[in-house]
């Protein structure tokens, strides 16, 4: 199955995969390319491009995370074609949008001739480049509830340079504070790699953060929890221990940014 092919073509060329049949869905834009927001739920058609995300008026305030990630995604030529659905279905640590959608607790809609089903994104990604997509299904939509009041989202990405680069580490955070604007109600923090090369939520870190005061002390402790739950591998882009240090630094940066934003608003 090919959407734009920005991920598939290099892999075919390196002979990492050799499909006997290619099913091209890139022309189904009438049905699968849309950004809709109704009743607090944002729905993105699978063929929505990253440029579409950048040009949409939907992603400001609580949803600025989408804009941040889109701005750092590839380069204009890649953003112009790379799709939301393709990014999610490629299910690799290099797919920048997956941690973002996970932090937003997104669901995916899978359709086939027999009907449709919805799955939480965290259950859709089952391994490195493995998804729960059935052989006769296509992913048609990614959707998530727009974060409510006292909520804040943010994204950090590290590559070897700023543009046109595959992430060494990228992290997304969606945080909701209690009414006192000091206590963390819930945290959804996701990374491009938690174990091996699979993007996922940092479950233990999120559990640790829930109910605690958003303070320097909490941030320091959360960094330790994060390090204990990561088991990162090394590759030519960076070593496992380097990735862990950056992941911790980004967690601190995200929480401090949140603290400043929400503190300033109170």
């Amino acid at each position, binding site marked *: 199955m090919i959407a734009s092919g920005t991920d598939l073509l290099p892999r075919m060329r390196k002979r990492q995969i050799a499909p006997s049949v*290619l099913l091209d869905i890139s*022309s189904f834009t009438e049905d699968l390319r849309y950004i809709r927001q109704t009743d607090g739920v944002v729905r993105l058609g699978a063929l929505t491009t990253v440029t579409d995300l950048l040009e949409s008026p939907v992603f400001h305030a609580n949803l600025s995370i989408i804009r941040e990630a889109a701005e750092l995604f*590839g380069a204009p030529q890649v953003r112009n074609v790379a799709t939301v659905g393709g990014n999610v279905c490629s299910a690799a640590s290099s797919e920048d949008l997956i941690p973002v959608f996970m932090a937003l607790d997104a669901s995916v809609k899978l359709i086939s001739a027999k009907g449709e089903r919805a799955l939480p994104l965290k259950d859709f990604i089952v391994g490195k480049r493995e998804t729960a997509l059935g052989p006769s299904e296509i992913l048609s939509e990614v959707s998530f509830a727009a974060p409510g009041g006292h909520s804040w989202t943010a994204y950090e990405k590290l590559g070897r340079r700023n*543009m046109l680069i595959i992430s060494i580490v990228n992290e997304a955070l969606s945080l909701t504070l209690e009414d006192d604007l000091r206590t963390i109600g819930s945290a959804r923090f996701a990374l491009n790699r938690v174990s091996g090369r699979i993007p996922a939520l940092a479950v233990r870190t999120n559990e640790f953060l829930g109910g605690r005061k958003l303070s320097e002390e909490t941030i320091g402790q959360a960094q330790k929890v994060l390090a204990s739950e990561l088991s990162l591998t090394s590759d030519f882009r960076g070593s496992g221990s380097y990735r862990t240090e950056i992941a911790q630094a980004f967690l601190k940066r995200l929480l401090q940014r949140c603290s400043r934003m929400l503190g300033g608003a109170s």
Partner: protein
Amino acid sequence: MTKRVITLNVNGTEHPVQVDAPDRLIDVLRDQLGTKSVKEGCSTGDCGICAVLVDGRLVNSCLMLAAQCDGRRVLTLEGLLNDPSMKRLQGTFMANNAAQCGFCTPAMLMASWDLARHSSDPSPEEIKVAISGILCRCTGYYQIIDSVREGCRGGER
């Protein structure tokens, strides 16, 4: 995989071309249609040297199958040789020594021309974003950024 015939509109002319499913747009542009301004660098979408416009959007032609462009409009540097905006950009690139080996220049010009369509006075930051997908390994980027700025300012389109 079996060959099929598709129609590519390249620089305003319709070309029926026979393609295999894995043939990329760059393969057809260079090998069948002879538009050699389209260069192949990395083949993985990292260098941007193969950039062309498809239906008015800048894309890497190494990351797109030719079959996906059936019936679509492709624009390469060859199609813009008499275009006033492109001529201006070529002039400012030459005046500023913005090309050394020249391998990235066609893609730089395509990205710059695309920017000039939308902005007659882009900021250095906008220019950097516009050319961020294209690597130059010779001149450094400042001459290129200056050239794009002057070329875009050269008049309205």
